[in-house]
C-alpha cells in the first residue's frame, strides 16, 4: 500500500465515532491536568493509563496521546493567567503572557497560544508522516558530546534573557547551576548538598522551585499594592489585534521550525525549544526591549515551539522506539501494555494503529483549538474574581499542586521558601528565567559531559573534534561572547567619540 492509501485508512480509523470521543476526552483531561500546577503531563498520563486498559489498543493510545498534548496546552493557561507555570515548557510563557494578562490582554495571549500550538502541532504531524525515518536516523548522530554542546548553546541563551543587567543574569545562572547539583550525583550516586535530608536525595524538585519563584513570588509582590484593580477583559479584546497577527505569524513560523527539529533529538526536554524560540524571537525583533513587558510574539513563539516539539518528539518514539522525554516514556509503556511495540516494526505489523494514531494527532490538534478558543473568554473572566478570593485560591492551588507531586510536605516548604526568594529577586529586578534554565540544564549537562569524557577516556577534545558538537560549541561561544564584545565596542566608541 502506498502512503496515500495509508493516509486515508488512517483517517477512516481516526474518525470512527468512538475514537473521536476518546480523542476529545483525552484533550479535555489533558488540558485539566496541565492546568493543575504540579501534576505535570508525565504523572497525569501515568495515572490515566489504567483508564485506558478497558479500551481497545488504538482507542487507548489515541486517548493517551491526546492527553499528552492537551496537558502541554493546559500548562499555558495557568502561566498566562496567574504566573504559575504548570511544567517546564510553560515557564517562558510566564514572562510575556502574564504581563499581557495584567494589561487585560489575557484573551489574545491564550488565543495566539492556541492558534500557534495548532499550527506548530499540525506541521510537526505532517512532517512525521512524510520524513520520519530519515530524520530520526539523522538525529541518532546526536551522542553525548553533541547533546552537551547543544545544552551549552541552551545555557548561553541567558544572555538573551538578561534584561537590564547581564551580570545579574549570570549570577542567577550560577545560582541555578548550584541548585541543580543538590541531590545524587548522576553518575556515581554520591549525595551532594543533601545535609542528610532524605527528600533532597533526589534533588530540590524543579516544580516546587518554579512554582515558588514565579507563582508565590508574584502573589507576595501583589500583596504590596494597596488597591488592586480588577482586570476587566472586554469580549472584543479576546482576539489579537491585526498588528499582533502580523508579528505573530513570523514568530509562529520560527517557533514551529525550532520546536520540531529539537523534538527529534531524544533527551532534550521541552524547555530548550521554548527558551530558544523566545530568545531567537527577541533577537530578530525590531523592539527587543519590549520583551518581558507583554509582547504577543513572546507568547506565540514559545507556545508554538512547545507543541511542535511535543508532536515532533513522537517521531523518535514511533520510528525508533526511543522515548525522548519522561512523558513519552510513559506513553511508550502504555503502548507496551496494550501489546504494541513502538518502532519500525509497528509500522509494518500494525499500520492501522500507526496511521490511525497519526491521523488522530491531526484531529487532536483541531479538537484542542476548537475546545480552547471559545474557552479563552471563560478563562480570562477568571481574572475578574476579586483579588481577596483569587490570590488565596491560587495559593491553595499551588500548595495542593506542590504536595501532589510526592505526597510530601517538604515540597510545599521548598515552594514557599523559593516564593520568598522570588519576591526578593523581583524587588531587586534580577531575572528569574536564567535560574530556571540552569536548574533544568545543569544535571543534563553534567550527565552528558561525564558520559562524553567516559567515551573519550578523559579527553576533553572530544567535544571539538566531532563535527556537530564542534559547530554547536562555536555557536555557544559566539552567543555568550557577543554581549561582551559589544560592550567593549561601545566603550571604545565612547572613548573615541569623547
Amino acid at each position, binding site marked *: 500500500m502506498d502512503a496515500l492509501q495509508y493516509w486515508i485508512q488512517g483517517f477512516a480509523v481516526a474518525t470512527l465515532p468512538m475514537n473521536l470521543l476518546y480523542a476529545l476526552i483525552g484533550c479535555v483531561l489533558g488540558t485539566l491536568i496541565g492546568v493543575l500546577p504540579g501534576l505535570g503531563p*508525565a*504523572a497525569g*498520563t*501515568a495515572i490515566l*493509563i*489504567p483508564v485506558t*486498559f478497558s479500551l481497545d489498543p488504538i482507542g487507548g493510545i489515541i486517548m493517551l496521546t491526546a492527553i499528552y498534548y492537551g496537558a502541554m496546552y493546559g500548562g499555558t493557561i495557568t502561566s498566562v493567567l496567574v504566573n504559575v507555570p504548570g511544567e517546564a515548557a510553560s515557564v517562558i510563557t510566564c514572562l510575556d503572557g502574564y504581563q499581557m494578562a495584567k494589561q487585560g490582554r489575557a484573551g489574545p495571549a491564550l488565543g495566539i497560544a492556541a492558534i500557534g500550538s495548532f499550527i506548530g502541532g499540525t506541521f510537526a504531524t505532517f512532517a512525521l508522516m512524510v520524513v520520519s525515518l530519515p530524520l530520526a536516523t539523522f538525529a*541518532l*548522530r*546526536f*551522542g*553525548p558530546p553533541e547533546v552537551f554542546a547543544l545544552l551549552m548553546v541552551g545555557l548561553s541563551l541567558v544572555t538573551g534573557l538578561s534584561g537590564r543587567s547581564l551580570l545579574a543574569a549570570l549570577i542567577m545562572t550560577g545560582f541555578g547551576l548550584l541548585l541543580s547539583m543538590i*541531590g*545524587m550525583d*548522576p*553518575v*556515581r*550516586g*554520591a*549525595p551532594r548538598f543533601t545535609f542528610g535530608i*532524605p527528600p533532597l*536525595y*533526589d*534533588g530540590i524538585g524543579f516544580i516546587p522551585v518554579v512554582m515558588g519563584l514565579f507563582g508565590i513570588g508574584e502573589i507576595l509582590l501583589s500583596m504590596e499594592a494597596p488597591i488592586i484593580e480588577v482586570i476587566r477583559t472586554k469580549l472584543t479584546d479576546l482576539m489579537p489585534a491585526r498588528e499582533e497577527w502580523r508579528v505573530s505569524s513570523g514568530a509562529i513560523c520560527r517557533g514551529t521550525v525550532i520546536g520540531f527539529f529539537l523534538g527529534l533529538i*531524544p*533527551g532534550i526536554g521541552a524547555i530548550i525549544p521554548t527558551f530558544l524560540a523566545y530568545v531567537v524571537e527577541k533577537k530578530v525583533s525590531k523592539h527587543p526591549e519590549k520583551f518581558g513587558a507583554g509582547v504577543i510574539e513572546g507568547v506565540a513563539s514559545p507556545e508554538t515551539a512547545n507543541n511542535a516539539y511535543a508532536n515532533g518528539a513522537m517521531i523518535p518514539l514511533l520510528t*525508533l*522506539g*526511543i*522515548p525522548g522525554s*519522561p512523558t*513519552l*516514556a*510513559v*506513553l*511508550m*509503556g*502504555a503502548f*507496551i*501494555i496494550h*501489546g504494541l*511495540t*513502538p*518502532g*519500525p*516494526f509497528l509500522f509494518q505489523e500494525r499500520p492501522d494503529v500507526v496511521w490511525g494514531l497519526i491521523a488522530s494527532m491531526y484531529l487532536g490538534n483541531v479538537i484542542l483549538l476548537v475546545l480552547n478558543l471559545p474557552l479563552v473568554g471563560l478563562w480570562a473572566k477568571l481574572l475578574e474574581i476579586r483579588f481577596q478570593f483569587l490570590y488565596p485560591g491560587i495559593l491553595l492551588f499551588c500548595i495542593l499542586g506542590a504536595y501532589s507531586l*510526592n505526597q510530601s510536605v517538604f515540597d510545599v516548604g521548598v515552594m514557599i521558601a523559593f516564593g520568598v526568594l522570588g519576591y526578593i529577586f523581583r524587588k531587586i529586578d534580577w531575572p528569574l528565567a536564567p535560574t530556571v534554565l540552569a536548574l533544568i540544564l545543569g544535571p543534563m549537562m553534567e*550527565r552528558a559531559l*561525564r*558520559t562524553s569524557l*567516559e*567515551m573519550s*577516556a578523559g579527553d576533553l577534545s572530544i567535544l571539538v573534534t566531532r563535527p556537530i558538537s564542534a559547530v554547536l560549541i562555536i555557536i555557544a561561544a559566539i552567543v555568550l561572547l557577543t554581549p561582551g564584545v559589544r560592550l567593549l565596542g561601545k566603550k571604545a566608541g565612547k572613548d573615541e567619540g569623547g
Partner: protein
Amino acid sequence: MRGRGKWFFALAVLTWALFVGSLHAADYPTRPITLQIPYPAGGSTDVGGRIVAAIAEKAIGQPIVVLNKAGAGGQVGWTELARQKPDGYYLGYINLPHLLTTVLDPERKALFKAEDIVPIISQALDPTTISVRPDSPWKTLKDLIEESKKRPGQIAAGIVGYLQDDEIGYLQFAEAAGVQMRMVYFDGAAPAITALLGKHVDVLFCTVGDNFTQWKAGRIRMLTIMDKERSKFYADLPTTAELGFPTVLSASTRGIAAPKGVPAPIMKKLQDVFHKAMMTNEHIDMLEKAGQPVKLMLGEEFTKYYWEQFKVAQKWVDYVRKK
C-alpha cells in the same frame, strides 16, 4: 465534650485503633493497598507492576494503587519503603542486585539496611546480554574478546545503571575473559540504546527487557546472554555457559517486597494472591509481549536468592571501591 467525656472518647478511639492495627489475616485487607514503584512511569518495572496490580486487585478484593516514587536509581523509593509501617498496606518493587549495591556502597549513604526490606515474590528475572549493532564486525563473543585484547581499554562499552546488574555482568565478564573495555555509563535503557544505535558506543551491556523492542526491529544483535539456560525469547542466542564462561551470570530480578515486620499471616496471603495473579495467562502473555522473562520465586526461595545476591553485590562493590 468536657472533662471525663473527653477521656473516655480518647480511650475508646485508642482501643479501636489498637484493634484495627492488629487485624488478623482473615480480615486483611480492609482498605486499598499501595504498591510503590521506585522508578519513573513507563519503564520495565513500572509496566510489570501495573500489569500484576490490575490482575491481583480483583482477587484480593481491594484496589491496589500503583505509586511512582522515582529517584536516585531506586534509592528514594526503597528508603521510603523501609520507613513504612509493616501492616501489609504499603508494598514496593525491588530490583536486585541494584537494591543491594545501593545499600552496600558507602558512597550512596543509604538510610536503610538490607534486612529492613523483606521479599515477598519475584516477578521477572531479566538476564544481561552483550549487544552490538547488526553491522558490527564482531559476529561472535570470541571476536569481541580477541579485539579487546588487541586494543585494551579502547572499545567503548555502554553500561546501563551504576553498580547494577549490567555493570556486575561486565565486571564478571572482564575478569573471566581477561579483557578491559572503556566503560560508559547511562542512567537508563533508552539513552544507552540510543547511544549504541547512534554509534557512540560499540557494545552494550543491557538486559533482555531493555533491548527486546530494538531486537524485534532488527536494530540490535546479541553476542551472548548471561544465563544458565537459553532464553525463550532468543532461542538462537548462546549462553555464557555454552561459550565457556559458566561463572558469568548476571540478571536484573524484579519483585515485590514489604518493610520488615509484616505479620506472617498477612505475608502468606500476599504471597498467595500475587502468586496466583502472576500465574494467569493474562499476566504471562502481557509480560512476554513486553519482552520480560517471567520468573516466579516465592517467599523463602526469593529470600534465599536475595541474600545470595547480597554476597555477589558485596564482592563487586568492594572490588570497584578498591580500584
